[in-house]
């Protein structure tokens, strides 16, 4: 039957020592009485109320309490005033809230996105110790870095350095087809890995023993989602799976958790490395960089020392020509954002520059929204001036007034913040679809993010609130109350300056967006040196591969099919790692090139142009060890070898042990994205023609696809029909840029809309102030057009200044961005005019909306004085 101890303690502590005992006694007596009749809660509440009533009796040294009480009362009062102001000026409050909501929603959304981008691969335990080994090789006079390494790297590192705790090779198995319970199921993310894989990528085991599974050939480790997809169940350990084109079945050894969505490495089925051909893991050598290598080092391992030592080992094993070869260790958490320069980085990647870019955009949009608040509040300061004067007369200090107006800003910001969260919740699905990420509002609660969001909130409230609070709280009561006060005019230049800034930022973003879109269009439409429209690429294997010639003949008979060719890969993904040398003597220094095996139909099918020489006379697939290989080089390769096109024909060359003769030269054509320049390329009559290129007649594309599919089904029972359009595959190379340009477009539109919202607020305020002036002008004969012009002029001058300011800045910044591309547009002046015109037009419409209303109003209304 005791009230809460903290209340009695508080009284004991606060009341003057002579009084504490009897007063507390009185209260306790009452409490006992209440407890006789009422519940504990009610008694406690009454006790609390009486305690509050005693606070004024506290000793002077505790009068802080009464001051706090007073502050709470004032705070309540400020909130009430803020609420009343909001209700009284609905229009301005709405403009403020909508602007801040849009700004905050955009800002927080970008913050979420950035947070997500930075979180890649950080959810793996001990990710700080995990590195991917990248391979630095000489290329075209310099060096290039590729993500693939030879198969020796992982075992060698593990044997040599005690700091290497675990290592795994990862070999991309490509697309495989399983037959499960008579159903064909495609597995697109199938990887061969070493048994220590799960020591490095630490994922939870759901059933089975993955370590044991990865030690045996033909044993699979499925992720949870793969198990669901294959069997509709995760309880599948021990089940047998038949793989198409493989005689023996595979056994499911374990089921593990899916890799986190924010990981660079997305796999769904793992199979032990020992399933590969035996020589691939028994013969360790430095050729054939086909494997990703991941290592886990002990904490505090000296990377530099390891790099030095392994480099010495490379030279020792491969001789002096390996001087330029090096291994680089990239932390896995860097792979997602810092792999722009790395070739064959296989997975969907982000880019740190876009993270910076978007953070900047978020900040700018927030700033624009804050400026709206500043401008509208200071513009309307005359309306609050009397209040400030009166408060000062009855004793308010400048500091207290400052606090009052800051609290108003916090109040508005808080409302906007809540609305912004709602908006984010609504747009998140669309944003996720656009960016192909899986953001959620729940991420807001995670560690740093909660501070980030709080910081954004405080920053917005403070930036918006501090200047108006400062200028309002500075009013002198005598001036204000005498009635001869026109505070608004004094801050006019400041407001105009801020409007200039807002529009400068908006125009900057618009120009940026226009240039990005233009560059992308250029990339998409640039002549690649081959014709990629209406070309299907079909991966082939199994029965079709065995009867490829007959299948091709069958295809060619279809009227919609113009030409068919076989090659190793689609032209957009031709592989590097080859080297070509003059003469047939082994060990000569070679030129690093990309190369691909093709057939005689490739050049006409892709519509390449022969510069000189012939396109594979008497074509037949060459064999290793015979000096009858035939080569077609592109112009760049010929040039790099130091020949003219004519000289090149008939030269004896060797491509990684394939001795043969140069038969022809083709025009340079783009094989990778236009980020990179055209490099030296060699085409040869090799085996392994796994891809069919089918050119369809333009205008009959859908019938063409149907015809190809029908032929396919007639020939192939084990594989589902699957095709890609070459131009789609090509577009995918620019996915990043396309996504960014879409995001950019959305946010720059948002920026200008928010800026216009502010403009709308400002003009509606000034027109309201100038109602009388407009009335008199009208009475004296001014036309509506003249009045609109008069009102608009004030607002269009800042916009014009903004255009002048932002144009050179945008020009400079966008030139920097374009430098990322080897093939780029020149920035043409019309973009700047267009951006300026868009801005002028939008702001003109915004302003006219209000000024037209003011100008057409009946002057009688304006001038009547009751």
């Amino acid at each position, binding site marked *: 039957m*005791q009230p809460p101890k903290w209340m009695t303690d508080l009284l004991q502590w606060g009341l003057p020592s002579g*009084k504490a*005992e*009897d*007063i*507390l*006694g*009185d*209260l*306790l*007596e*009452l409490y*006992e009485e209440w407890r006789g009749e009422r519940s504990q809660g009610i008694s406690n509440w009454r006790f609390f*109320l*009486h305690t*509050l*009533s*005693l*606070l*004024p*009796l506290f000793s002077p040294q505790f009068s802080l309490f009464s001051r706090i009480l007073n502050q709470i009362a004032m705070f309540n009062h400020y909130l009430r005033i803020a609420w009343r102001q909001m209700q009284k000026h609905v229009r301005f409050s709405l403009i403020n809230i909508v602007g801040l909501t849009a700004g905050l929603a955009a800002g927080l959304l970008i913050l979420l996105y950035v947070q997500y981008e930075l979180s890649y691969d950080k959810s793996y335990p001990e990710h700080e110790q995990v590195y991917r080994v990248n391979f630095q090789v000489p290329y075209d006079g310099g060096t290039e870095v590729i993500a693939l390494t030879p198969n020796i790297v992982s075992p060698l590192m593990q044997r040599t350095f005690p700091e290497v705790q675990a290592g795994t090779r990862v070999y991309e198995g490509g697309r495989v087809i399983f037959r499960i319970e008579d159903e064909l199921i495609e597995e697109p993310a199938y990887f061969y890995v070493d048994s220590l894989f799960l020591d490095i990528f630490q994922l939870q085991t759901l059933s089975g023993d993955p370590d044991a599974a990865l030690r045996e050939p033909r044993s699979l480790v499925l992720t949870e989602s793969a198990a669901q997809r294959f069997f509709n169940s995760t309880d599948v350990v021990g089940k047998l799976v038949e793989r198409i084109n493989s005689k023996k079945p595979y056994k499911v050894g374990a089921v593990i958790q899916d890799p986190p969505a924010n990981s660079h490495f997305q796999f769904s089925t793992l199979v032990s490395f020992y399933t590969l051909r035996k020589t691939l893991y028994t013969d360790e050598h430095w050729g054939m960089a086909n494997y990703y290598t991941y290592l886990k080092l002990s904490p505090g391992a000296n990377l530099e020392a390891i790099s030095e030592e392994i480099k010495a080992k490379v030279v020792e094993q491969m001789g002096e020509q390996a001087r330029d070869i090096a291994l680089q260790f990239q932390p896995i958490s860097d792979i997602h954002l810092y792999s722009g320069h790395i070739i064959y980085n296989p997975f969907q990647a982000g880019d740190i520059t876009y993270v910076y870019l978007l953070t900047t955009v978020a900040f700018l949009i927030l700033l624009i929204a804050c400026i709206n608040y500043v401008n509208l509040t200071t513009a309307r300061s005359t309306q609050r001036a009397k209040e400030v004067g009166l408060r000062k007369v009855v004793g308010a200090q400048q500091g207290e007034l400052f606090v009052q107006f800051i609290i108003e800003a916090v109040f508005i910001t808080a409302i906007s913040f809540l609305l912004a969260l709602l908006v984010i919740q609504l747009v998140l699905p669309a944003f996720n679809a656009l960016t192909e990420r899986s953001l959620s509002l729940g991420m807001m609660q995670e560690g740093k993010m909660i501070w980030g969001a709080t910081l954004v909130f405080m920053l917005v409230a403070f930036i918006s609130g501090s200047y108006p609070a400062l200028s309002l709280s500075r009013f002198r009561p005598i001036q204000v109350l005498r009635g001869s006060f026109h505070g608004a005019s004094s801050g006019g230049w400041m407001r105009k300056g801020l409007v200039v800034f807002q529009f400068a930022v908006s125009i900057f973003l618009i120009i940026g967006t226009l240039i990005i879109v233009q560059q992308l269009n250029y990339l998409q439409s640039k002549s690649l040196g081959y014709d990629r429209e209406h070309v299907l690429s079909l991966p082939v294997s199994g029965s079709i591969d065995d009867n490829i010639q007959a299948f091709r003949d069958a295809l060619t008979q279809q009227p919609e099919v113009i030409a068919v060719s076989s090659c190793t890969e689609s032209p957009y993904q031709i592989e590097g790692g080859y080297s070509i040398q003059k003469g047939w003597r082994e060990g000569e220094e070679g030129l690093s090139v990309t190369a691909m095996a093709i057939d005689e139909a490739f050049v006409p099918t892709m519509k390449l142009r022969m510069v000189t020489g012939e396109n594979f006379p008497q074509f037949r697939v060459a064999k290793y060890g015979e000096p009858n290989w035939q080569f077609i080089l592109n112009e760049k390769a010929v040039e790099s070898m130091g020949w003219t096109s004519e000289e090149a024909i008939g030269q004896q060359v060797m491509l990684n042990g394939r001795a043969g003769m140069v038969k022809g030269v083709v025009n340079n054509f783009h094989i990778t994205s236009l980020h990179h320049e055209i490099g030296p390329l060699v085409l040869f009559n090799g085996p392994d023609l796994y891809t069919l290129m089918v050119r369809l007649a333009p205008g009959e594309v859908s019938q063409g696809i149907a015809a190809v599919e029908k032929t396919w089904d007639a020939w192939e029972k084990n594989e589902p029909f699957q095709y890609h359009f070459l131009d789609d595959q090509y577009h995918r190379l620019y996915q990043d840029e396309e996504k960014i340009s879409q995001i950019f477009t959305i946010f720059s539109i948002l920026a200008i809309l928010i800026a216009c919202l502010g403009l709308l607020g400002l003009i509606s305020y000034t027109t309201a102030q100038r109602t009388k002036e407009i009335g008199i002008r009208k009475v004296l004969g001014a036309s509506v057009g003249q009045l609109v012009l008069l009102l608009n002029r004030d607002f269009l001058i800042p916009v014009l200044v903004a255009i002048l300011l932002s144009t050179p800045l945008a020009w400079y910044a966008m030139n920097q961005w374009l430098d990322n591309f080897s093939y780029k547009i020149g920035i043409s002046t019309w973009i700047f005019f267009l951006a300026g015109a868009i801005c002028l037009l939008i702001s003109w419409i915004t302003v006219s909306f209000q000024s037209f209303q003011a100008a057409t109003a009946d002057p009688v209304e304006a001038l009547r004085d009751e």
Partner: protein
Amino acid sequence: MRGSRLGEFEEIVLLTVAVLFDEAYGIAVKKEIEARLDRKISVGALHTAFNRLEKKGFLQSRLGEATASRGGKRKRYFQVTASGFGALKTVRQTRNEFWEAIPEIAFK
């Protein structure tokens, strides 16, 4: 004389202490006032009034004996001082003079 004026609530508290005579401690005074005036008063307000009245010299107080109830806390008993009674009388006299000065006709 400025310091010795009685507020309305102070007058009531002073009167109640006088009425309760020997039993005038906080809660007793509180209950007496609540019963007679049919209004709730807070402990804080009551003790504030006690404080002021003591400062003005109208009340004096002593601590009672400790008991098992009230968490073992002693009661403080109040007593009206001579000047306290003086002040009450003055108030009453002033009131009476006012009452007598009201012309008979005003009541009709």
